[in-house]
């Protein structure tokens, strides 16, 4: 088995900042000198490519092509360190070992997957192939919110599952479902991350409440930030604004991931 770790980033509901968090965590782990892959399994509504500066013109082969047998998984890999270091934050990734495996943003290719389904064995072979072919230390899987085939598979094969929630009752109830499933699937390491916490509340209190509720470790409480909203997914926020409170808290989460043996 590959020595690389699979890190799934999940949230039960949309709008938690999952793709932004995934991109930032992957970037921080790559900056720590690790070989990192990021795969977008949100096939029906892909988005993480935007944070890495990709658009339809720059994107080559995609996960959709792989699932349709049109290319190998290695051909899907987009080398961020070589090709996408074009914004202030992303420039810090120049020369780093970071690859993105994007999903297609072409309407017809998204509709084809929805219409025809796909071979889940092939998707899993793709994940394992990414780890092996690029000798990755970490593969981050960005998932669709809620529970579906891609999400459940990614949870089942994870070494580390990060569940993102907001301090919100709907998120709390949904997170309880995901935590139950993760425990049923024997995920070895479960981390929670609270995002978009109102700055007027005490982060330590939020952490304690969430940990008591879910009997799981909270790796970070990240503040709701207008600066983050203003960034509008145009750059990797924690690289562009490393001294921002959000970025500091995010680095605490990436450190927790790196400390897991």
């Amino acid at each position, binding site marked *: *088995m590959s020595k690389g770790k699979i890190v799934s980033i999940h949230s039960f509901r949309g709008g938690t900042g999952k793709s932004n968090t995934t991109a930032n965590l992957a970037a921080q782990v790559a900056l720590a000198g690790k070989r990192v892959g990021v795969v977008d399994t949100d096939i029906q509504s892909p988005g993480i490519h935007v944070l890495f500066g990709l658009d339809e013109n720059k994107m080559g082969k995609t996960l959709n092509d792989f699932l349709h047998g049109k290319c190998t998984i290695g051909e899907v890999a987009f080398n961020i360190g070589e090709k996408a270091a074009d914004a202030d934050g992303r420039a810090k990734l120049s020369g780093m070992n970071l690859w993105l495996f994007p999903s297609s943003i072409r309407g017809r290719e998204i509709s084809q997957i929805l219409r025809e389904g796909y071979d889940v064995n092939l998707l899993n072979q793709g994940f*394992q192939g990414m780890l092996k072919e690029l000798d990755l230390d970490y593969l981050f899987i960005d998932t669709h919110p809620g529970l579906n085939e891609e999400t459940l598979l990614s949870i089942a094969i994870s070494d580390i599952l990060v569940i993102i929630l907001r301090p919100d009752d709907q998120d709390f109830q949904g997170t309880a479902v995901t935590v139950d499933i993760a425990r049923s699937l*024997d995920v070895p390491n479960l981390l929670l991350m609270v995002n978009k916490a109102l700055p007027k509340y005490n982060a330590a209190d939020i952490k304690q409440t969430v940990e008591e509720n879910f009997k799981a470790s909270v790796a970070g409480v990240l503040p709701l930030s207008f600066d983050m909203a203003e960034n509008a997914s145009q750059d990797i926020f924690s690289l562009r604004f490393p001294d921002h409170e959000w970025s500091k808290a995010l680095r605490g989460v990436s450190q927790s991931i790196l400390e897991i043996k």
Partner: protein
Amino acid sequence: MPGIFDRLQKEIENKQGEGGITALDLADLPPTLRKIMRLMLRELQLGYPEMTDAIASLPDAERIPSKELDESLDVLTRQGWLIRIGEGLKAIYKVNLRRKSGSNLAGGIWGTLDEKLKK
């Protein structure tokens, strides 16, 4: 003329077309079966000797006795969740995940959408 690898691959693909396990099914499996399936999800394919080596390398508390391993592999194979090619020490096991089914929406709706997306 197809070689032995091609024939085995074809046999695996034919068997993979029949049923298979979903990730949600995994959550309902007894612990020993789930442990084997989780290992197989990461390894994709293992020969029997490699499987016993992998189980033997687990921490003491997680190891599966040989008889229980054999019985569990039989159960998983009968269910179609693992595919077994060959027998005994020469057996090769491969994980079999159920295909994600397509949409139940009427074909005409997809046809119309495709036409609009072409424009």
